[in-house]
């Protein structure tokens, strides 16, 4: 059995065990969940030394690693086919890490503990499965599995407007899923399995242009398919103008769920574009590169401006996520090795940085019971340790050198500038706005006279530090020495860049 | 005087009287009496046809059968009426409308 199967389905087993435990023994449930996630994290981390960084993956079945393939639904040639390459492996690391850290961050939850942790672990299964699936149908199934727990986690454990947010999130994402489903079926019925001659859901077969037949060879169909998949993934990113579910969902979701939502789920969108859209429809994608770059640029500037106008701390962080995901889109729109690698590295870095930001918002919310930026003031003197970590996270979000965000942003700019000069130059101005709103927020929250209401507010505690410090260390370490993550993806993404640059646009 | 017609006239009169009693009276006992009258009219017809037509005693037997039926019927009916009276304190059939929708 592949270790990937193990890390995917262990959380479900954990969830089942949790459901079997006595309902009111919160401690036991929490520690079971933590233990499950820890085991997953350890297994995932132990894959790191075994991972061969030279192997390419992307569209070459033989060079995927830790693969496993079983027939699942033979009637439709659907397989349980999993494996990782340099694109998905960093995402799996991120998922395992954030899932683990989010569990202690959820220890404060008092309502329906059993259901919460069971759903949370189910969510982890969905996320892992999405990243490792190599069969489009399997991918779709995991994609939907992820959706359901999220709906309940927001809808039950969320804030005052949780129902609205959960429904909005669910419906919005479902629209994207439907688009994807249609394109998936179009691909299925027009792709020939080179071995059996029948239809296939195997992504790697779909990527081989020689296997594609029939209607999907038409340019017009390909454009429709491009936009179908694009919208399906763009909603998840979320790309302008499909982003409005994100602030609502974040504001209402409990802290740990926000972390997962921003840290992992948003990456699914860009991951899907790179994993599925790029190799399957390369020449269509290349001819719409300008479009992806444009949306990326809009995301950066627009998200930053919207963040500046927010008064709710969590909403501000949510909009900053939108802005930061724009860098990913800008980087990957260039189809250069630097841009793609910058984009995927930015996905990883944004996962860690935004996780820190949301955890930090959660810390202050637990103490002050509100998130109004203007309602704080002068916390620097009463919460020095909290301020230190917040500064780290904020400056990382600003892309300050020495922290991981800088390297990915620099790579994105270097990669994108070679192709999209105007887009990149406009996008660079986003870093001023980012600095503006983050510093302004720092000032309003921490500087000035201490708000008399919060004179005896408690500084960050050990449990919260436990969730934040690993992320902080990663952010600093990767900012100084990015190789551990960059090298993972180098050969895969260089290969993808070569693939994309060798096609002729429409 | 010994002709069939006279028997039939009497019988018809009894039957019509009994029928009228059944249709018009509200009191259960009166209706029961009407029914008895009609039964007796039938019995009279049996006997009369038996006397004037054939040599066997089929008609007589039928008349005796009717008498027995009438007696059994009266017993059952009176039992129902008693229960009705106990339930509704009345013997009028119109009041026995428990099954009405």
């Amino acid at each position, binding site marked *: 059995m592949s270790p990937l199967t193990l890390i995917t389905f262990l959380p479900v087993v954990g969830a089942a065990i949790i459901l079997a435990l006595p309902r009111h023994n919160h401690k036991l449930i929490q520690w079971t969940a933590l233990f499950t996630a820890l085991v997953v994290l350890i297994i995932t981390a132990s894959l790191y030394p075994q991972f061969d960084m030279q192997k390419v993956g992307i569209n070459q079945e033989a060079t995927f690693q830790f693969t496993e393939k079983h027939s699942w639904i033979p009637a439709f040639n659907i397989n349980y086919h999993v494996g990782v390459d340099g694109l998905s492996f960093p995402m799996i690391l991120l998922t395992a890490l954030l899932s683990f850290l989010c569990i202690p961050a959820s220890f404060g939850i008092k309502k329906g503990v059993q259901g919460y942790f069971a759903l949370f672990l189910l969510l982890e299964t969905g996320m892992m499965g999405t990243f490792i699936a190599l069969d489009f149908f399997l991918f779709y199934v995991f994609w939907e599995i992820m959706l359901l727990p999220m709906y309940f986690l927001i809808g039950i454990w969320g804030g005052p407007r949780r129902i609205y947010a959960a429904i909005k999130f669910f419906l919005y994402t479902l629209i994207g899923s439907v688009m994807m489903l249609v394109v998936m079926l179009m691909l299925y019925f027009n792709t020939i399995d080179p071995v059996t001659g029948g239809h296939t859901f195997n992504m790697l077969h779909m990527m081989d242009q020689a296997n594609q037949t029939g209607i999907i060879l038409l340019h017009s169909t390909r454009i429709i398919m491009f936009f179908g998949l694009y919208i399906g993934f763009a909603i998840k990113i979320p790309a302008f103008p499909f982003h409005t579910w994100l602030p609502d969902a974040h504001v209402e979701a409990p802290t740990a769920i926000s972390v997962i939502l921003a840290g992992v789920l948003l990456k699914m969108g860009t991951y899907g574009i790179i994993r599925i859209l790029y190799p399957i429809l390369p020449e269509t994608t290349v001819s719409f590169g300008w479009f992806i770059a444009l949306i990326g640029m809009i995301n950066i500037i627009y998200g930053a401006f*919207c963040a500046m106008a927010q008064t709710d701390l969590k909403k501000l962080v949510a909009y900053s996520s939108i802005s930061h995901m724009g860098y990913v889109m800008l980087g990957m729109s260039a189809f250069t090795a*630097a841009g793609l690698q910058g984009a995927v590295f930015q996905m990883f870095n944004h996962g860690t940085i935004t996780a820190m930001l949301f955890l930090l918002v959660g810390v202050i919310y637990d103490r002050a019971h509100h998130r109004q930026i203007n309602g704080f003031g002068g916390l620097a003197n009463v919460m020095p340790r909290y301020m230190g970590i917040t500064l780290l996270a904020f400056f990382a979000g600003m892309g*300050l050198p020495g922290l991981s965000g800088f390297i990915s942003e620099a790579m994105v700019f270097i990669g994108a500038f070679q192709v999209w000069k105007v887009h990149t130059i406009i996008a660079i101005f986003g870093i001023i706005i980012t600095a503006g709103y983050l*510093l302004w927020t720092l000032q309003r929250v921490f500087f000035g006279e201490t708000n008399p209401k919060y004179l005896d507010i408690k500084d960050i505690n050990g449990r919260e530090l436990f969730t934040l410090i690993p992320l902080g260390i990663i952010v600093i370490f990767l900012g100084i020495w990015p190789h551990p993550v960059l090298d993972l993806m180098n050969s895969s993404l260089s290969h993808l860049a070569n693939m994309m640059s060798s096609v002729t646009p429409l | 005087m010994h002709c069939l017609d006279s028997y039939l006239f009497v019988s018809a009169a009894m039957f019509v009287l009994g029928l009228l009693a059944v249709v018009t009276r509200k009191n259960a006992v009166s209706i029961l009496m009407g029914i008895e009258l009609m039964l007796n009219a039938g019995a009279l017809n049996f006997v009369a046809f038996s006397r004037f037509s054939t040599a066997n005693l089929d008609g007589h037997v039928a008349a005796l059968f009717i008498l027995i039926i009438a007696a059994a019927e009266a017993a059952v009916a009176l039992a129902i009426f008693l229960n009705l009276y106990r339930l509704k304190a009345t013997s009028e059939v119109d009041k026995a409308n428990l099954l009405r929708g």
Partner: protein
Amino acid sequence: MYLRQFAVGALENSNIDNIMFQLAIYILLAPLVAFTINIFWGKRYLPRGGDWISITAIWSGCAFALYMFFTKVLGNYDPNYFQSWQFDWIRWGDYQLRIGIALDNVSLIMLVVVTLVSSLIHLYSTAYMKGDPKYHRFFAFLSFFSFSMIGLVLADNLLIIFCFWELVGLSSYFLIGFWHEKDSAANAAKKAFVANRIGDVGMLIGILLVFTAMGTLNVTEVIAGVAAGKMGGMALTIAGLCLFCGAIGKSAQFPLHVWLPDAMEGPTPVSALIHAATMVAAGVYLVVRIFAILTPEASLVIAYIGGFTALFAATIAVAQYDIKRVLAYSTLSQLGYMVMALGVGSYTAGFFHLVTHAMFKACLFLGSGSVIHAMHGALHHIHSHDDAQDMRFMGGLKKYMPVTFITFLIATVSLSGVPLTSGFMSKDAILGGSLAYFMMHPQHWLLPVFGFGAAILTAFYMFRLVYMTFFGEFKSGPEAATALHESPRAMTIPLIVLGALSIFVFYSFNPFNPASGWFSTLNPQPDRAYEQLQAVAAHDTHAEAKSHDSHSKHEAVEKAEHNDSHGTVVESHGEEHGEEVHATDAGGHGGGHDVHHTAHLIAMVISIILATLGILIATMGYYWHKIDPNVWKKRLGPVYLGMYHKWWWDEIYEYTFIGGTKLTANILAWFDGAVIDGLVNFVATIGRFVSVVHGWFDLYVVDGLVNLTAWIVGIFGRFTRLFQGGQIQRYVLYTIALVAVFIILKVL
């Protein structure tokens, strides 16, 4: 190729080179280690908040820097000295972005300046910051700042320069906003960071342009690439100006000058460190570094920006009353000088002024800190809430603070450009350079006007400051005066050292000819890359005919071939008037030397006259009281107001850029909530409306049909029910009636 040779060479044969590297790395990392220790453990576990760790780190670094300087630059001068040490930092595809540290004469000199000033300020801070609740954090940040600045000096790659560039911005953010309880300090810190970021955007674009054209960011390789013609013309001009944007931000040139005066909200040692010697000098240092790739057009823009800033800031400094603000605007003005010098091609003069200015301006800031320290005590003594930095409450302090006074006066004299000082030499060289440029390009007459205009104003406002602070009567009353005292030794020693370094002997033994000093001799102007390119082109054209006639051209070709950008062998070594050996631009090959010589003499005479004049006016106004400043304020009217209100630039920015940004943010947020989210909700509403209509249709049409059927059946039912009265008697009647009917029908 060239790099590898040096790197390998360094490892193989030269022991001293190895030591140099180890020392450089030590100098770089020691403050970082000090920062890490102090920020985490300084307050709780270390005596004196761990200040001794920071001090040890920077003093030892300074000692090593001096050692390197004396062995390599002074002792064993090699005009082509260059070493670098690199490693892969980022990889993508087959490309490896290598970063590392590079040592050459320029970086060694800069290293000495940075570590020396920083060391003295560390020492000074032990007294100045004594008793502050965040004492340990202050030293941690000082160390972090030193680390960033040293890294900036040593960096060999534009991207890594950018990294340290931003880190310098970050540490200045912490230091300016050190007293963040004050809103003004928090605002100033934010303003500084954002203003720097704006410049950084330009710089980043410049870096991207350079990288896209050349595929490398290593400074040496970039210069070699330009010399080899990989980039040129308009693209190179734009790239050069974009890179210069970074310098505009960091060196606070117009129009991004607004952050620097506000940054005076930080503790005074910070002002001295950041705003005199190091951070603001970083911008100039960057221009020094990229000097070789600047095109004439780019240089011209740089010269105008610098010249304008020099004059513009000087006019504001004249009307300020806050002692630190005067110095802040004077810093702006002096930075303008340096930038202008680099713009007009007086490389050596610009860099020289950077060094001398670092010394005397640090001295001035620390001196003002000493004054503020004393004033603070005095005003506190009388429970006054007057501003301890306002010169109108000072006066006559020379009696009470003799050391501060004397060192301050030396630095003032130096800044004003009085002979026998370092400032005279460097400023004179700049003025000479701008005058020479004007003589070669008469249409640019504004540049020397800027320069000389700023010179007279500088002398005036500095002496105004000295007279208002140290002479006359103490304005806060005799009771407060009793509390005045000279600052402790930890504060006066740095003043003495820096004051001494403002005297000519350290730079040149002939006070009227800096060119004969070590600095100018050892820092020849590097050849412009485009000039090399032209030389190569010329060489190619006349290759056969004149292959051996032009020594310099031949040399240029050789250099281009060797990818070497660092100055030619200095022929001027020991030459008498060799301040500018090389022509300032392509057009000046022939007469450059003479023009410079003449310009230098004229400039010296004019600048002495102007400095004297400025001092004289200040003396008349503030010492002899022959001129009443208040009368002149009225006479100047709006001009004075403009000076006093800093020409309203803060207000202009507040209403245009800052207000505009906030407005845009609010509009976009509204747009997001109302339009985009509104659209989403509208779609949802349409969905709900459709479902309502559909529900109605379902209820009344689809279900209606069903109900209609049922209704018809019901009608029939009701009709038949008529016959079912529940009365058996009626049934009997019906039966009878029917039977009767049948019988009648049968009979009929």
